[in-house]
């Protein structure tokens, strides 16, 4: 029985303090609130950004913390979207029920597929994540009786939230709806990241051998992370379906998977707010450039990606860190 040891503060300062809410963390939320009040014409784009932040957060759990690279994460987003959409087509139009349904369905899907494919690693695992996405996409394309096929899901009717609050045409309700869901998801992820479980995920990325050697059931933890990540992605997809009142095959594309990975690396992988910065940056750039000329969008996206990978692996937040450190030295 170990005696009660006092730990001197300097020894454990970082560990004891890092989970505390820092003042600068309020900044993204203030900006999000300001957008609602000051930029009412941009709320549709704003809602899409919030949805992408959720999606990126879910992927960062896998990529930034557990260290799993997936090319197929869009399959959970898409499944969540279609599940929510199909539910409304069949009479269950209340959105919160749809969210819950997508959460459970995608969580189960994630646990199942994770249990199967996380036995592999490297190229095989990468291909398997892609393979599952491709299967999902092909299924959505072919099973027109369920999904509407290539034309997308027809006849979606999204009812008022809790029977009370109807979605409006100015995206105000949509924005707040997405925001509340994001707050809940973010809180969950934030707690998880600083918890022993979350740290053990990072431990697996750092040294898998060492994790097994300290008695961690590595595979079970990874599968759980995969399931949680899938569930969150599914919720993001459901919100997407609700606010757009439409689901099309573009929610199940490699392009979307690559896009969300890009958002992560732009913002900063493995950082809580990397998803915020990356998603906002990507979506705003896309909105501006793709309107001008799709060619330019792809060109600049590609050039930026290459530049970030070669020169700034920490993304925008990484650059901000360096700038902060430089300023601190003056």
């Amino acid at each position, binding site marked *: 029985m170990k005696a009660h040891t006092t730990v001197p503060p300097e020894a454990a300062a970082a560990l004891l303090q890092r989970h505390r809410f820092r003042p600068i963390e309020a900044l993204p939320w203030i900006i999000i609130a300001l957008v609602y009040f000051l930029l009412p014409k941009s709320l549709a784009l704003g809602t899409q950004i919030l949805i992408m932040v959720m999606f990126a957060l879910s992927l960062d759990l896998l*990529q930034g913390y557990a260290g799993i*690279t997936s*090319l197929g994460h869009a399959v959970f987003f898409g499944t969540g979207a279609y599940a929510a959409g199909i539910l409304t087509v069949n009479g269950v139009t209340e959105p919160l029920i749809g969210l819950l349904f997508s959460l459970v369905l995608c969580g189960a899907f994630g646990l199942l597929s994770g249990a*199967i*494919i996380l*036995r*592999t*690693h*490297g*190229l*095989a*695992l*990468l*291909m*398997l994540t*892609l*393979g*599952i996405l*491709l*299967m999902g996409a*092909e*299924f959505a*394309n*072919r099973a027109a009786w369920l999904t509407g096929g290539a034309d997308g899901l027809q006849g979606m009717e999204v009812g008022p939230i809790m029977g009370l609050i109807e979605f409006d045409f100015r995206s105000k309700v949509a924005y707040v709806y997405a925001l509340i869901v994001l707050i809940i998801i973010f809180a969950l992820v934030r707690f998880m990241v600083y918890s022993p479980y979350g740290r053990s995920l990072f431990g697996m990325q750092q040294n898998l051998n060492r994790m097994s050697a300290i008695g961690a059931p590595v595979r079970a933890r990874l599968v759980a992370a995969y399931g949680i990540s899938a569930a969150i992605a599914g919720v993001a997809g459901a919100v997407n379906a609700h606010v757009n009142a439409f689901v099309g095959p573009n929610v199940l594309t*490699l*392009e979307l998977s*690559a896009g969300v*990975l*890009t958002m992560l*690396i732009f913002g900063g*992988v493995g950082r809580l707010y990397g998803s915020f910065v990356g998603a906002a940056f990507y979506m705003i750039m896309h909105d501006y450039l793709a309107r001008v000329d*799709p*060619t*330019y969008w*792809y*060109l600049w*996206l*590609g*050039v*930026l*990606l*290459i530049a*970030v*990978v*070669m020169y700034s*692996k920490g993304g925008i937040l990484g650059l901000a860190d360096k700038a902060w450190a430089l300023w601190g030295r003056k």
Partner: protein
Amino acid sequence: MNPPGEVLEIVLGVLFNGLASAMILYVIAIGMSLTMGMMRFVNLAHGSFAMAGGYALVYFGEQVGVSFWTGVILATILVTVVSAVLERLLYRRLYGASELEQVLFSIGLIFVASAVARYLFGPSTQNVTVPDSLSGQISLGSFSASSYRTMLIMAGFILFGSMTLLLEKTSLGAKLRAAVDNRRMAESLGIRSDLLFIFTFCLGSALAAFGGALGAEVLPIRPSYAFDQLNYVLIVVAVGGLGTLYGPFVAALILGITDTACKYWFPELGAFFIFAAMVVLLLWRPNGVFSRT
């Protein structure tokens, strides 16, 4: 109920078309398998070199006006040179990088290549003028096959044969195989891995460009080419296993024929079966069905 002779003809037709697609896929995939096996680099942009080959052929053939075969050769040379430049400037900085970085880098390259193609040639599919010698049909008994597709099949087999000869019978090939098997050991034996890398990379790109140009009729040349073909090429490489020649060959054969057959007889399924098959095969043999590990 179709009479047996007709059924046979249909089956042969499906097999034949499947084989032709498979061969083009193989020609493109073999380069990717070599670079992945040798440099452990996940280069998803490999298809862009094939696309470049196709576009270069279109340029030389339609706008400069050379013959088909001259165009193919010129296209291959041009793309190989470009790839060498890219390897020196960009790729070599990322050989030790993480999987995520390599994936995102190559996706970025696909976007750039695709945007350049769109800018130079426009968004629609390019027309390739196939020479008269290849635009007819060959008769084998009661079965007639497109000359063009026959040529593709022959090209695939010839390539397989010559690559095998190169790898098995020459000292260069031996060095390549050694470096794929165990790079550090090969280096300690004096094999210059940086030279081998650039050689392998250029060889892979040359093959891709050749395949893209040659197969321009079968795999349509358009800006989204790299993404269109990425799935199939990746399946061939992953299922075939890295580092062997016959692995991707057999994988390409099975994939090409099964895909064509499925699309013909079970169009409701589409490509679902192929993707499901890949998942099952990779779970059974994660290193590739035909790899030696």
